[in-house]
C-alpha cells in the first residue's frame, strides 16, 4: 500500500471511532444521576416547572430519539445550544478552544525546552552528581500536585515579584502569551519530568546498544554517533511521548485553567458536567477526541518518517 493510501486508511479508521465515542458519551451523560433541568433550575423549582422546561428542551423524549437527533445534527457539525448558557455550543467552544490549544501548545514547548537538554546531560553523566541532581528536581516536579505548583508559582512570580499577571487571559496575542506563561509552565513541569526520565533511559539504552559499539569500532566520532543514532532514537521517544500525553495534558489543563482563571475548554468541561449540560459535554468530548486522534495520526506519521520500519 502506498503512503497516501495508508494515511487514508488511518483516517477511515478514525470515523467509526468518533461514532463510538459520540454514542458512549451520549449514553454516559444521561446515565449520570440528576438531570440538566434540575441542575439549571436549582433546588426550589416546583415539579410543574421542571416538567415544563424538560418538555420544552425535548429532554422528555426517549433516549433513542434524542440520540438519533444528536447524531444527525453532529454529522452536520451542529451541536445545538448549551442548556446552562442558552447560547450555541459552537460559539462557546470557538471562544475557548484556542485558549486551551495555546496553553497546551506552550506547555509542550516549555516541557521540551526543559527536558531535552537536561535528559542529555543526565544520560551523559549517568549516576554522577549532575544526573542525580536533575532527576531529583524533576521528581519533585512530577510528584507535586498541579494546583499546588500553580499556586506556588502564582504567589512567587505573580503576586510576589510581579513578573507575571495573576491569572486571566488578557487581550491580544502578546498578552495571551504573557498570561499563559505561568499556567503553561505549571503544566510543563510534570510533563517535562516524564519526558526527561524516559528520554534519559532511552538515550542510555542507545549508548549501550551493540550497534553503537559497532559504530564506535568503525571509527565514527562520538559526535556523529550522537547525531545519527542517539538523536534519532531520542526524537522517536519524544514524539511518542508527546503524542501519548496530549490527552493527559488536556486533562491537566482542567485544573490549571481553574487555578489561573484561564477561560479554556477544560473549565467549560467541568462546569458542563456539574450542570449536566449535555450538548456541551457531547460536543467537547467529540472535539477533544478528534484532536487526540489527529495527534495520534501525526505521531504515527512522524514516527514513520523517523523510523521507516514502523510502517505508516
Amino acid at each position, binding site marked *: 500500500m502506498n503512503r497516501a493510501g495508508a494515511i487514508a486508511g488511518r483516517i477511515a479508521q478514525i470515523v467509526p471511532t468518533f461514532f463510538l465515542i459520540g454514542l458512549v458519551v451520549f449514553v454516559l451523560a444521561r446515565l449520570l444521576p440528576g438531570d440538566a433541568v434540575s441542575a439549571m433550575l436549582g433546588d*426550589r423549582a416546583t415539579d410543574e416547572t*421542571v416538567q415544563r422546561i424538560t418538555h420544552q428542551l425535548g429532554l422528555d423524549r426517549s433516549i433513542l430519539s434524542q440520540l438519533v437527533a444528536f447524531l444527525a445534527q453532529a454529522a452536520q457539525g451542529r451541536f445545538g445550544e448549551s442548556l446552562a448558557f442558552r447560547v450555541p455550543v459552537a460559539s462557546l467552544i470557538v471562544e475557548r478552544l484556542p485558549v486551551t490549544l495555546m496553553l497546551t501548545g506552550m506547555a509542550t514547548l516549555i516541557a521540551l525546552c526543559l527536558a531535552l537538554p537536561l535528559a542529555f546531560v543526565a544520560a551523559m553523566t549517568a549516576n554522577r552528581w549532575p544526573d542525580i541532581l536533575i532527576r531529583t528536581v524533576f521528581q519533585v516536579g512530577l510528584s507535586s500536585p498541579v494546583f499546588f505548583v500553580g499556586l506556588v508559582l502564582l504567589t512567587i512570580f505573580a503576586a510576589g515579584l510581579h513578573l507575571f499577571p*495573576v491569572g486571566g487571559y488578557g487581550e491580544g496575542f502578546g498578552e495571551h502569551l504573557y498570561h499563559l506563561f505561568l499556567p503553561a509552565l505549571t503544566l510543563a513541569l510534570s510533563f517535562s519530568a516524564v519526558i526527561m526520565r524516559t528520554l534519559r533511559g532511552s538515550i542510555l539504552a542507545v549508548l549501550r546498544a551493540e550497534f553503537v559499539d559497532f559504530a564506535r569500532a568503525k571509527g565514527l566520532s562520538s559526535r556523529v554517533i550522537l547525531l545519527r543514532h542517539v538523536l534519532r532514537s531520542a526524537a522517536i521517544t519524544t514524539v511518542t511521548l508527546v503524542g501519548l500525553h496530549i490527552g493527559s495534558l488536556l486533562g491537566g489543563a482542567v485544573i490549571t485553567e481553574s487555578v489561573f482563571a484561564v477561560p479554556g475548554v477544560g473549565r467549560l468541561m467541568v462546569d458542563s458536567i456539574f450542570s449536566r449540560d449535555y450538548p456541551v459535554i457531547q460536543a467537547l468530548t467529540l472535539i477533544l477526541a478528534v484532536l487526540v486522534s489527529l495527534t495520534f495520526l501525526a505521531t504515527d506519521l512522524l514516527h514513520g518518517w523517523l523510523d521507516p520500519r514502523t510502517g505508516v
Partner: protein
Amino acid sequence: MISTIPLTRRATLGGVMGLLALQAGLSQAQAATTGGKLVFGRYADSLFLDPVLTDANVDIWVMTNIYDTLLLPTANGQGTQPGLATAYEITDGGKTVTLTLREGVKFSDGTPLSADDVVWSLDRARDPKAGPWNSLLASVDHVDAAGNTVVLRLKNPDATIIPVLATFNTAILPKKAFEAMPGDTMDDKAKAFGEKPIGTGPFVLVEWKRGSSMKLRRNPQYWRKADNGQALPLLDELEFQIIPDDSTRLLKLKAGELDGVEFVPFARVKELQADPNLRMELWPSTRVAYLTMNVRPTLNGAPNPLANLKVRQALNYAMNKDAVIGVTTLGLGKPMRSFMSSATPLFAPSPLYPYDLAKAKALLAEAGMAGGFDLTCLTLSGNQDNLTNLTLAQQMWSAIGVRLKIEQLDNPTLTAHYRAGTFQLRTAAWTDDIADPSEITSYFAYFPNIASLHSGWQDARADELYLASQREIDPAKRAAQYTEIQSIYNAAAPIVYLYETPYPVAFRAKVKGFVQIPLGNNIFEMASVEK
C-alpha cells in the same frame, strides 16, 4: 434563593454597617471621584440576564445594575423606596395598586420609558408559562395603563405586591426593542435580548465573554442622581472577571489586578482586615445555613427516626451552634434564632435550642432511641464549610449515640435526591430575594409549594396562616400571623438550625461606595475609584 453552588463560603457581622453605608452612600458621593474603571472578581459568571426566566443568584445579584424595577429595595432589605415609579397608592381594600411613573426616564438605547413597557413587562413576568417566578404576581388580575399611571387590579388583597414590585423579576424592559429581537418565539427573543440587554439601570452591558469577563459601561441616560446632584453612576466602566478559585481571586486583589472580590473565605477575612491596602466589608445578609431533615415516617423502605419530633429536637439540642460558628465561620456568623434570618421582615426570634446535651439525651430516651441510631447526610462535594459543619455534627452527635455518615455528591445528584425526597439529611443555605418573609416561608413552612423543602413536614395551621397572611394587609395582624408560623415551625424543627453569615466582600482601599444589600444585590452605581 437556595445556594447550591460550591465555594459559597460566606459570613455575618450582625451590625448595621450595611444600613449606614447605603444611607451614607448617596451623600458620600459629594466627595466621590467620577469616571474611571472598577474591576470586580466574581467566583462564577452569570448565565442568562433575563429577569423573568432566570433563578440563579449569579444573574439576580448583578441584573439590578442593568435593569430597574418600579420600586427598589431599601438598603436594609426590609422595605421599598421609589424606583421607576415615584409613588404608589393602594385602594379598593387592597385590591388596586396605582403607580405614578417617573418622568423623563429613558432606556439605555435612548427610547423613553412608557406605561406600555411597564404593562408589557409585568404581563410577561406573570405569565404562568414564563419562568419560575410568575407566582409572585399570581394575585394580579390585569394591569392597565393610563398616561403616566399604571394600575394593577388584583383578584384579592395581596400583602406582598409592594415588595414584589421591588424584586428583580418585575424589572421593566423595553417592549419594542424586545419584540424586535431575532427569533420566532418569545424564548428565542429572550435569549437574543439577554445577550444585549437594554434597561433603565445604571450600566449597559457592552461585552460578555462567557466564563471569562463581562464589561459594562455607564448608562448616560440613567435617571438617578446622588444627593449632591451628581449624575450616577460615578464609574465610566465596570468589569467583572470570573475567577472561580478563591486563592487566585484574592491573589489578584492583592496584586492590584482586581479592585474588589466577592466571597472571601472566612479563613482569610482576618488577614485581609489587617492589610492597609485593602478594606474588608462584611455586609449583613439574609443568608441562613442549616441542615434539612426528611421527616417522612419511612425512607427507602426503612423506618426513619427523623419522623419523631423528639429526635429532631434532640439533634438540635446536641448541636453546639456557637462552636460551629467559631470553627466554620471563625466567629463571623451568628446563631439562627428562627428559620428566617434576623434581616428578614417580621422575624420573630426565640432562644432556638440552646446547646443542652442532657436535654438531648433525655429527648432521645423518651423517643425510645437511647441507644442512638445511624443517620446519613448528603452534602455538596467541594464545599468546605458544609464539610466542616458535618464533621463537627459527627462529633457532637456522637455524644448522644447518633452515628452520622457523610455522603458527598455533585450538585445535580444532590438535587435529584432532594426533589425525590430520598435524602435523610442534607446541607443547605438560603438567601431571600424579596423584602418580605413570604418567600422563605412558602419554601420552608408552606407544604403545597415544595413539600416544605421536600422534607415532607406539614402543619395544617401553618399552611392556613401562610395563606391568610398573603392576603392580610393589616401590618399588625400579619406580624402576629408570622410570629405564630415561626413558633409552630421552630417547635417542630424540620431543620437543624445553624447560623447566619454576612456577605464577605473585599476592595482595594481606594474603592468607595459599593453596596450589597441583605438580599444579595450588588449595587455599583455609587461606587468610585479614587485616583
